């Protein structure tokens, strides 16, 4: 006897932000409305170089289905992407290329570092491997694991979504942000 499949019937949709409500109108702050829209329509750019990339493929496929979180559409052009997902070992020779990809992305942009290698160099403590991508580009969320399971990658995406939703629309124009980028030698 095969197990009966349980379908989830109670579906949740994105909740509207806090605001003033009345017959025929709804008023909220622009930050919250934009945050809600951005959060649920991320366009990730996968920068997959090794086994974490394989886990990412599983994450995108039907079983785990990242599309459920609005990140259905992968952007293979950095100019249209919001989220740079770095998955795998980045060698020192690859470093400038990753940085170029990051610089080509338009603001606002976020970076998710998936796996031990991208986050710290992992087991590759050697002359040819970059010891963590945060040495060349700023990282928003780190996902630990070697490689992490698809659930962990999804968790990382949800953390990114939290950041996206709560980000002030002025952050990217602030002095602190420019200073932070300058500390990586960008612009």
């Amino acid at each position, binding site marked *: 006897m095969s197990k009966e499949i349980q379908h989830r019937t109670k579906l949740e949709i994105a909740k509207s932000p806090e605001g003033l409500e009345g017959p025929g109108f709804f008023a909220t702050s622009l930050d919250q409305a934009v945050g809600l829209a951005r959060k649920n329509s991320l366009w990730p750019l996968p920068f997959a170089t090794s086994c974490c990339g394989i886990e990412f493929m599983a994450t995108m496929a039907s079983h785990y289905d990242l599309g459920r979180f609005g990140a259905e559409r992968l952007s293979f052009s950095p100019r249209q992407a919001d989220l740079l997902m770095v998955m795998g070992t980045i060698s*020192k*020779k690859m470093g400038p290329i990753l940085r170029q990809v990051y610089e080509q992305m338009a603001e606002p942009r976020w970076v998710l570092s998936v796996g031990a290698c991208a986050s*710290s*160099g992992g087991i590759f403590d*050697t*002359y*040819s491997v970059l*010891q963590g991508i945060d*040495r060349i580009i700023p990282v928003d969320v780190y996902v630990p694991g070697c490689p992490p399971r698809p659930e962990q990658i999804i968790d990382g995406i949800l953390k990114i979504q939290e950041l996206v939703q709560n980000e002030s629309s002025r952050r990217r124009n602030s002095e602190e942000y420019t200073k932070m980028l300058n500390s990586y030698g960008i612009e």
Partner: protein
Amino acid sequence: MSKEELLNNISEALKSKFHGDIERIEMQYDFPVFTVNKEKIHEIISFLHSDPELNFHFLTDLTGIQTPDEKHLGVVYHLHNMPKNWRIRLKTFMPMTHPEVSTISDIYSGANWMERETFDFFGIRFIGHPNLKRILNMDEMDYFPMRKEYPLEDQAREDKSDKMFGR
């Protein structure tokens, strides 16, 4: 032809032409190995390549080596005669202070990238090479990572220090 016959054949052919430049002849793990004078390496390989009897027309591999006393660098050549399935190995050594050897990329075109790799990792300069620059490592690298005097690990690593383990 057995391995021993091959070793004897080649050493006779080499000795008759390059007597005194063949420093050592031995069978290492069932493989004929000839250690030769660095100055004559181009001539010897050229002879092995073009002699119609020997006909070592294929360069299987070329790589570098450093002796454990850190005083000498070496280059190892693996040659192959495919019609007769003869394989031999040639070695040549040079002092660390003067790591230069003649290129063989004019004999085997395949040696071009192998010599670049050997230069990249051991810093052995191949005189006469058409384009001797790094091939695998980044161009900005300022040392030769396979040499024993340099550490294998990346010195920028922070998460392995004792304070991360409460020591």
